[in-house]
């Protein structure tokens, strides 16, 4: 559908992309949109590349995002931003974490972590906004909230109030973690 907005969250298994997308989807549901969300479980979670796709609008058909169809990509890891870049539509935006997580071929010394990601994305004419979410999560004393810091950074490209995001966080995150996640979200939102 023409009025559907497509958001792809890309990262590495274990980084919390699913939780972040659940918060996003809850917010969109609260706002009365039709929402579809697609995620992959199973073996890919063992340190492999993972994507979660969220689409919203008045009425959403396909649950997945085709190449060239994403309005936004939120990448949790630098290399994953490049891996998913072809899903972005012309004029779309990528918010990307500067975090570099070496993959298996890099870990065992067969390949090098690419140093030219920024250039390659620039060559494609993509608007990329890099954020260092990991450092902020470290400052907050829990690197696991890196995902919500990123969600905060991403929130500024969407037209929703901080209150709406906070409400969604409170619905998705276990009560004892809400406070930390709200702080993480707020810190992230100031990055972009």
């Amino acid at each position, binding site marked *: *559908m023409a009025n559907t907005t497509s958001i792809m969250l890309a990262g*590495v*298994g*274990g980084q919390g992309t699913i939780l972040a997308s659940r918060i996003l*989807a*809850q917010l969109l*549901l609260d706002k009365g949109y*039709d*929402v*579809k*969300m*697609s*995620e*992959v*479980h*199973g*073996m*890919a*979670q*063992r*340190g*492999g*590349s993972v994507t979660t796709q969220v689409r919203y609008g008045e009425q*959403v*058909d*396909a*649950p*997945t*995002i*085709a*190449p*060239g*169809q994403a309005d936004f990509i939120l990448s949790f890891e630098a*290399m*994953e931003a*490049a*891996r998913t*870049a*072809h899903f972005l539509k012309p004029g779309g935006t990528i918010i990307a974490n500067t975090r570099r997580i*070496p*993959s*298996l*071929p*890099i*870990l*065992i*010394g*067969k*390949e*090098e*972590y*690419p140093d030219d990601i920024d250039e*390659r994305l620039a060559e*494609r004419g993509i608007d990329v906004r890099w954020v260092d979410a990991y450092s902020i999560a470290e400052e907050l004393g829990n*690197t696991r909230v890196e995902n919500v810091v990123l969600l905060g950074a991403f929130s500024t490209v969407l037209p929703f109030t901080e209150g709406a995001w906070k409400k969604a966080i409170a619905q998705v995150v276990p009560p004892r973690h809400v406070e930390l996640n709200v702080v993480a979200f707020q810190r992230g939102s100031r990055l972009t």
Partner: protein
Amino acid sequence: MKSLMTGNEAIARGAWEAGVRFATAYPGTPSTEILENIAGYDEIRSQWSVNEKTALETALGGSIAGARTICAMKHVGLNVAADPLFSSAYMGVNAGLVIVTADDPGCHSSQNEQDNRNYAKAAKLPLIEPSNSQEALDFVKVAFELSEAYSTPVLFRITTRLAHGKSVVTVGRRVDVKPREYVRDTSRFVLMPAQARARHGVLEDRLIQLEDWACTTRLNRVEWGSRKLGIITSGIAYHYAHEVFGEDASYLKLGMSYPFPKKLVEDFAAQVDRLVVIEELDPFIEDAVRAMGIEAEGKAIIPRLGELDSAIIAEAFEKADSKSPPPEDVTGRPPMFCAGCPHRGVFYELGKLPVTITGDIGCYTLGSLPPFAATETCICMGASISAGLGFQKVFNMLNPADPKRTIAVIGDSTFYHSGMTGLLDAVYNDVGLITIILDNRITAMTGHQENPGSGYNLSGQSAPQARPEEIAKALGVERVTTVNPYDLTEVKKALDNALADPHPSVIVSRAPCALLKREAVRRPPYFVDQDACRKCKACLKVACPALYVEDGEVHIDNASCVGCGVCAQVCRFGAINQTEKTGEN
């Protein structure tokens, strides 16, 4: 109230609303969460079975005994359960029985992408296919009505995108369906040849009646748009097609595609100029349309392989606006053993041996990848042992003086699922296969489901604990050794002893999955002493995500290291040390 639900959650909810009282399954991606969600409903007794065959037989028993029952499995699980599946069609049901098959187009987490709609036709069962979570919830309820109205199990087919995709649903209330009285009826429930022949006739008659039902049910509907293009579609493919064509096409959306609603198809085909079938995987609908003598396009333009998406369909119709740019060529990111994974040490040692290693289904299938490059086969659940037996038997035959040895590697849950029978085969035929049971105390890959060895059941209550060692001994294996997989010397010694023994033997490698919070032990992390390090990078051969190289130096990430110590045992220079001693030395 509206909420977002995965297809799996919606099926669980639909089953609950339909008055289901009993549910069985063996976990398998993408079906696992159906039973996990059902376990949250107090009115339903639910259980993990040891495999899909026992799950379906148990479900069939439950249905005949009088309770509405649901049974869920992944697509390849239905192969395991195919025997009772075919019998169940002959017998029919008492209370409703719905069998969910979760197919995996694209092989996200499977060894094949078989299209289980073919099972409906082969076993002669009605087939229901929802397209989104709301339909999943609604159609399950219809499936139970249908099951009881026609005394037939119903095959309910979903795919990964539906199982794990979330969409908006409005929930309803549970109806209290009274249990049905069980009445002894050997003419139905004892499939001796004489009864079976008669039941076959009943089954064929039932299919004719079900086809009439398929032509009038609201599960099958026509949406009129432009009549220049008529699309027959089902499942998730409907949404991809609708995304591309909207009002520019008319749709015959089949929620029940077997028995095939011929009358509906005939009427629809007569009213459109061009007829195209859009479906994932096999030409299941297309073949049925063509068998009616109606000309339709389908797999000539729509791929048979993998998942569809809206871009693939747009392209098939040459409707794509512009070709999207090609993907960036980026270093791959295959899945790998987690930091502290107990499989690591075993595969590190196995990778060094001149043996053939037959593998199985689980996280440890990753042992086939570099740098371990150990495992050589992965066929299906349980096949490591039985295929390994075949390897060893032929190796023995071809080179009796010095046969190459075979080692089968299987996880705990997979061993209970269908490894035990193969092991008995090895003992019975006295074939010197070495079987390693990787007992990580949980069904790990599908997301930590309990199993007969974990000590808990699906509801989280404590349960009798199966011991692989005792099972192996009871099956007649004489050499049964237990090792700590974090101790490479111990692993190596057990392997050497087993290799010296010409008879079947079993090594149980026991340590909890590193992600299993209730059992895993987190020890102080290790670090690399850069002064002692000779930069040989031997430690990288354990492929641990906690190790990384920066400016030519290997470092260990404090946050991800769980202190398993495997990398330290690989270092010949004593350069990898624990940050603080645990005090037990």
